[in-house]
């Protein structure tokens, strides 16, 4: 027997609560990092290259467009890192209460933005 249940899956009108936002951004950042892996390895490659090619590398990394991409990736890693740690605690049943879960979700958003800002300014 097929039960008829009310369904509300209109993504455009659902207001996602903060833990939901953290969760979907964790997925988005993970996928973004996946596609950026060659770039990330290249960054390490360039930083370890010989003195002459190091200058070329510096020019590549100093390009404004590249800087914007790198800030984006920095945020992606910071968010995935902080949200990931939060998920690991949830997995061992720490912080499951609604109030706590909301508070830690907010903390993740704030801390990852703050870290991005601090590191971004330091590296720019």
């Amino acid at each position, binding site marked *: 027997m097929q039960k008829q249940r009310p369904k509300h899956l209109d993504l455009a009108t659902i207001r996602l609560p903060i833990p939901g936002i953290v969760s979907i951004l964790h997925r988005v950042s*993970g996928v973004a990092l996946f596609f950026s892996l060659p770039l990330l*390895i290249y960054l390490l490659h360039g*930083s*370890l290259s010989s*003195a002459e090619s190091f200058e070329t590398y510096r020019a590549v990394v100093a390009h404004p467009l590249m800087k914007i991409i790198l800030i984006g990736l920095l945020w992606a890693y910071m968010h995935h890192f902080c949200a*990931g740690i939060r998920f690991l605690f949830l997995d061992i049943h720490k912080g499951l209460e609604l109030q706590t879960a909301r508070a830690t979700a907010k903390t993740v958003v704030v801390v990852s933005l703050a870290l991005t800002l601090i590191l971004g300014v330091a590296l720019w």
Partner: protein
Amino acid sequence: MVNRSVIGAHYGLRDWVMQRVTATIMVIYTVALALFLLTMPSSYAGWKDFFAQTWVQVLTQTTLLAVFLHVWVGIRDVWMDYIKPTGLRLALHAFTIVWLVSCFIYSVKVVWGL
């Protein structure tokens, strides 16, 4: 394996655990690297010398291996959630494997300075 049960919902458990273990490895590596960098003079030469040490190379490569295993499980989950046509899903899984293996090989070259 002798006592392998052919039914049940726990086949994903191994992958789930691997995703968590690899995540923990990455967290430890990230924190340790950050601490090292903070106590190091920030110069091209200092950075190069740091990465020329075998133990740094070994731990970096191990962590990168963890990244690739983690992402294999993670991206596969994403494809399984959104991509329903079998052929397309299979193609994306194949693409993911090729992508990750290539990245791994590139990372070996970079980490060991080949």
